[in-house]
């Protein structure tokens, strides 16, 4: 079982869990829940984008996939989060 502990996938998991806890605490302690908070939003959306790419790259094994699949999935992450952040700032 120690081989699984040292597996790169387990390290990715530890990273994903750690940043999930960071965004959990950011949202929980990030000031009044009823107020728009740009810092909290930018932090949690940035963390979500990084997590999405980590899952795609390591768990879905896209890092070993052909270029078109790497480009399509990375394009999804970039376009989605650009639109999310864009609509958010446009609405402020």
């Amino acid at each position, binding site marked *: 079982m120690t081989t699984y502990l040292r597996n790169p*996938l387990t390290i990715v*998991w530890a990273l994903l869990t750690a940043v999930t*806890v960071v965004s*959990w605490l950011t949202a929980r302690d990030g000031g009044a829940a009823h107020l728009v908070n740009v810092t909290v939003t930018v932090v949690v959306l940035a963390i*979500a984008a990084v997590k*999405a790419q980590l*899952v795609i790259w390591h768990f879905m094994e896209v890092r070993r996939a052909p270029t078109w699949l790497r480009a399509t999935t990375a394009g999804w992450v970039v376009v989605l989060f650009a639109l*999310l952040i864009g609509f958010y700032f446009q609405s402020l």
Partner: protein
Amino acid sequence: MTAVATTARRSIPGAPSMWFFVIGDLIIFGCYFVAYMYYRGQDHTLFLHSQARLNLDIGAINTIVLITSSLFVALGTAAARAGTVTDAVRLFGIGLGFGAAFPLLKLFEYVPEIVGGVTPGTNLFFMFYFVMTGMHLCHVLLGLVVISFVIRNLRTAPTPNISLAETGATYWHMVDLLWLVLFALLYLMR
């Protein structure tokens, strides 16, 4: 892994047809995510007040549950590929266990919400919340069935179907991926 090995093994994990389904799903959910953000921008106050009624702790625990389930499924896929079938069965089994915890925890969210009078008809936030998490939950349940088939194949087939394991795992990781975004949009952002 060396660069040579990476290039040599560059191939689509699992059945290519599953990837069309995965990419299609990502685009469909992506449209919902962007629409949600657009409508949220029209009425920050409504969305923030409604969001404050969600159970952030269950949402966060469920995120970690899905990430952990994904890890075991990924390790199980690697074990199946390496030919250590007993390990693969055990790892997929643990992944299935964590995965099954997700709908159970979701019940602890939905039931108090609905009993408390919150439904999709309450307002636009809860319409998005119930529709998007409901559609995602259907994906979770289907994913659990798929993972069960993978385990059955690993246990009973004379030669385990590695492509099936990879395909099932890919679908399951997509379920995890969609939740990560949903969690940020519905529970975390302000």
